[in-house]
């Protein structure tokens, strides 16, 4: 067993939260650059230039990429040979609290979904735990903005639904969202499992590098087709028109029940922020 102090986890989570908010992921920045070069609509090109410039300023001045610094989602994978000394839930939340205070990040979490008093700490975050092999802890911190979060959806299809129907559902959600999701978007899609499994897969899919493909050929093809179709919609950056509506479609799939076919699409704006640490 390898012993890991909760305090160390707290510090690393804090670092990751700051990095995620100030430094746009390299793969996201790269894909914005690629899209910029391909874009032919002037206003769209200009918007992409602003986004690239924005990422530069944010990194240099340690300023939030976007003022909606999100509700934080944390994926915590704990090696079965790691022993945590202290309370890991508390450590992760304290790390986020410190980051949001120290980094001058906006506190957007309310204590109760109906009473709506601001917690003023941007906590609690949403934590997904998993056990993996080895003696390390891998933590991904993802601040998720709500313009795009509000645009996602789950649909529990019949098991006989066709791929075309799934595609249509996903494309319709991006169209409905329009400018509210701050396009160009990145889609995280979960297919299979149960309602909750599909939703957590969709979120996790957003962690996958832009440009990577699902290892299963037929799923990879579906990713490609959805991406192509979305970039034909003409929604464009900020919804002002253009070729660049979607930067990537990432699908994660899971076995499911004979009677069902859950599909969840989690939309991320172009400000797709996350940072990973390994302890």
């Amino acid at each position: 067993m390898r012993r890991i102090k909760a305090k160390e986890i707290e510090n690393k989570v804090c670092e990751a939260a700051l990095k995620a908010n100030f430094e746009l992921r390299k793969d996201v920045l790269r894909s914005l650059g690629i899209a910029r070069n391909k874009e032919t609509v002037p206003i769209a090109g200009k918007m992409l230039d602003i986004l690239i410039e924005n990422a530069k300023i944010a990194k240099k001045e340690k300023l939030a990429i976007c003022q909606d610094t999100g509700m934080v989602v944390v994926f915590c994978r704990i090696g079965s040979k790691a022993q945590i000394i202290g309370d890991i839930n508390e450590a992760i939340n304290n790390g986020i609290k410190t980051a949001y205070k120290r980094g001058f990040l906006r506190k957007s979490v309310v204590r109760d979904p109906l009473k709506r008093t601001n917690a003023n700490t941007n906590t609690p975050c949403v934590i997904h735990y998993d056990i993996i092999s080895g003696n390390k802890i891998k933590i991904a911190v993802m601040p998720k903005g709500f313009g795009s979060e509000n645009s996602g959806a789950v649909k529990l299809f019949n098991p006989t639904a066709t791929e075309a129907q799934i595609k249509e559902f996903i494309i319709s959600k991006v169209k409905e969202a329009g400018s509210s999701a701050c396009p160009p978007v990145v889609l995280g899609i979960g297919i299979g499992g149960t309602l909750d499994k599909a939703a957590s897969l969709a979120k996790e899919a957003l962690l996958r590098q832009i440009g990577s493909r699902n290892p299963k050929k037929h799923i990879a093809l579906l990713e490609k087709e959805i991406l192509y179709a979305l970039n034909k919609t003409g929604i464009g950056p900020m919804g002002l028109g253009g070729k660049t509506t979607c930067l990537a479609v990432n699908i994660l799939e899971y076995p499911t029940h004979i009677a069902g076919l859950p599909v969840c699409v989690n939309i991320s704006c172009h400000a797709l922020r996350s940072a990973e640490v390994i302890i």
Partner: protein
Amino acid sequence: MQKLKEIELPITKEEIVRLRAGDEVLLSGIVFTARDQAHKRLCECIEANKPLPININNSVIYYCGPTPHKKGKPIGSCGPTTAKRMDEFTPVLLSRGLSAMIGKGSRSKEVISAIKKYKSVYFIAPAGAGAYLAKKVKEAKIAAYPKLGPEAIYRLKVKDFPAIVGIDSKGRNIYEN
């Protein structure tokens, strides 16, 4: 490519009617930030016939909840938030002389007809570029509702703040072009 129009705020009615959906502008002058909770409070004031904490007449409202500012900087990251959440409150504010709004995304039919009726204009600012826009803000002061934190009303002095005319005074809408 259209040429950029430079606009000094407060904007005059003559300038407003000359703007067309899709025009690119640079705004300089005073704007007030206000989002969900500030809108709710302003409209409650109007309904109760109480004086407003800010002068709405001829003013510009920016739908924005910035991140806290660091020492020595006027403001933190400060991009626009989704305008349609403010739709239910907007016609009342327009009837009180609000001249323009800045936000992101489309508006309701009711807002579009109020924009036409009161000859006002809705601008779109680049969304998710809050660090970039922070550079365009020269001064920021809390003007009302300090307890609301990021949702308070701030009086911002902006210089060359980039925006696009989303809905013009004739009701033309950039999202439907």
